[in-house]
């Protein structure tokens, strides 16, 4: 098995799985009906992408596991998502800020992945990039609207940005796996996406009347699996419960 390829696919699939799950937690209790529809739609896209990424990861692994096995039967230390996506929903402002910070990265990543030397990755990215283009449009516009809305909505969006700021850096931190895959042209070097990300987000924060916090401290440990936050275990407890409680059942 190509371990670096497997790990990279887990990183892609776990990001979409975990943030898709978080978004799905909003089901039925969104601020307005149009948001209920939009959030469910986005969660649906992300879970669909997860099926493709983890399906491919399972194929690459070649040990007979399925995408569902990877999603439902791994424990916290085997997950490879960045810490940003496992952060709790908080208020709607925190949810939509987390979404924008991820979507902007996700779009840049997918745009490069459509050119991957690994055809199966390029094919998934081509499908996903269309969906994520729409995700960015929506989360960016919502961040701008709420940042530039009322005093209260601005205050809440600023609080969300301040809280999530230290989780941005991990998306761009390259490790040996990333560099091996980037050298082979399979994935982009995440560090190479940073300049475009900063340029795009700078404009959005200005339009949203938000002040990016000083400093570039970044938490890490999610994508390597070394040290997730405490939040991930609770998410998995709920998501994996049926598969764990009734092993071997077919649903």
């Amino acid at each position, binding site marked *: 098995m190509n371990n670096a390829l497997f790990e990279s696919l887990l990183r892609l699939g776990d990001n979409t799985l975990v943030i898709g799950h978080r978004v799905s937690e909003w089901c039925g209790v969104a601020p307005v009906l149009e948001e209920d529809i939009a959030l469910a*739609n986005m969660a649906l896209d992300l879970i669909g992408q997860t099926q493709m990424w983890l399906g491919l990861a399972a194929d690459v692994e070649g040990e007979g596991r399925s995408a569902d096995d990877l*999603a439902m039967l791994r424990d916290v230390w085997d997950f490879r998502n960045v810490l940003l996506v496992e952060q709790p929903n908080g208020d709607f402002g925190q949810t939509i800020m987390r979404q924008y910070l991820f979507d902007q990265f996700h779009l840049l990543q997918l745009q490069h992945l459509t050119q991957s030397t690994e055809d199966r990755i390029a094919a998934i990215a081509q499908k996903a990039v269309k969906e994520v283009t729409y995700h960015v449009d929506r989360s960016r516009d919502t961040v701008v609207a709420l940042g530039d809305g009322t005093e209260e909505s601005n205050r809440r969006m600023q609080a969300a940005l301040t809280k999530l700021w230290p989780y941005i850096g991990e998306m761009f931190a390259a490790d040996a796996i990333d560099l091996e895959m980037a050298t082979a042209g399979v994935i982009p070097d995440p560090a190479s996406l940073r300049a475009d990300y900063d340029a795009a987000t700078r404009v959005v924060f200005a339009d949203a009347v938000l002040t990016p916090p000083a400093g570039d401290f970044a938490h890490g440990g999610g994508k390597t699996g070394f040290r997730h936050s405490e939040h991930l275990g609770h998410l998995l407890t709920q998501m994996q419960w049926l598969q764990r409680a009734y092993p071997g059942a077919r649903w």
Partner: protein
Amino acid sequence: MYAQMVKSEASQEDPEKLAAFQKRIDANEKIEPKDWMPEGYRKTLIRQIGQHAHSEIVGQLPEGNWITRAPTLERKAILLAKVQDEAGHGLYLYCAAETLGVSRDELTEMLLDGRMKYSSIFNYPTLTWADMGAVGWLVDGAAIMNQVPLQRTSYGPYARAMVRICKEESFHQRQGFDIMMKMANGTPAQKQMAQDALNRIWFPALMMFGPSDKDSVHSSQSMAWKIKMNTNDELRQKFVDQTAPQAEYLGLTVPDETLAWNDEKGGYDFAEPDWSEFHDVIQGNGPCNADRLEARNRAWNDNAWVREGMMAHAAKKRAQKVAAQ
């Protein structure tokens, strides 16, 4: 989903106008928003369409209860798609109601403070994964029974909304039955869950058609106006006739010892639900009434700042546009 026990209003208008209106209805003409209509017709429709819309919105909650616990990625995706459809149904129905001169916000306020109802079925809990199957199979099944005839209802915007809704509901029912098949043919624990779900949801599903015709006081005017197309008992009978053989196919037992095919009437004999329980639920004493309303109120109130923020931003944009002109 649908509306139940909608009180229809009498009309005090000019008898000539009323007669001409009734003639149009009898000729199966569609009534459109700008046409003259009796005040009672308008009010009854607002109540019925509003209640139907609220049912779609509150109906997201018992299923949303399982989205984060769906057993596979595919089941999660299907359930998300279904709940998204329901929010979409709510949206078309609120739009249909708006053509009658009431705003979505007004209807929402009436749901939140209890002046308007939603279908009593959503005041029952979803306790196991099999409930996702049983809700699709029985609850969406009962809703379809109610809604298919409403595609021919006299009010144009309602009838047209119902055409699209019915297509999606039949997908919902099929996915519910598919879950039930997996469960009924699964492990002993899964089969037990499936039977338990049927035991709990059977009678509440029968209640969805409303009280027996002999006790249903609001039907005749609504039937004459073609806002209601069939009587409660007709639809209930049709539902049991369709569902009893499906339960048998699944190898599950309907929790009604009196259920038996009656050759003479060409349909099943079956026990009536406990109507005192039905009235308790309608009065607010179902197992989940308080939770459901609290969840909707919290979603509305805690997120008021989001709606206000969006509106304030839109107003700023409009002002900038005007200033630039």
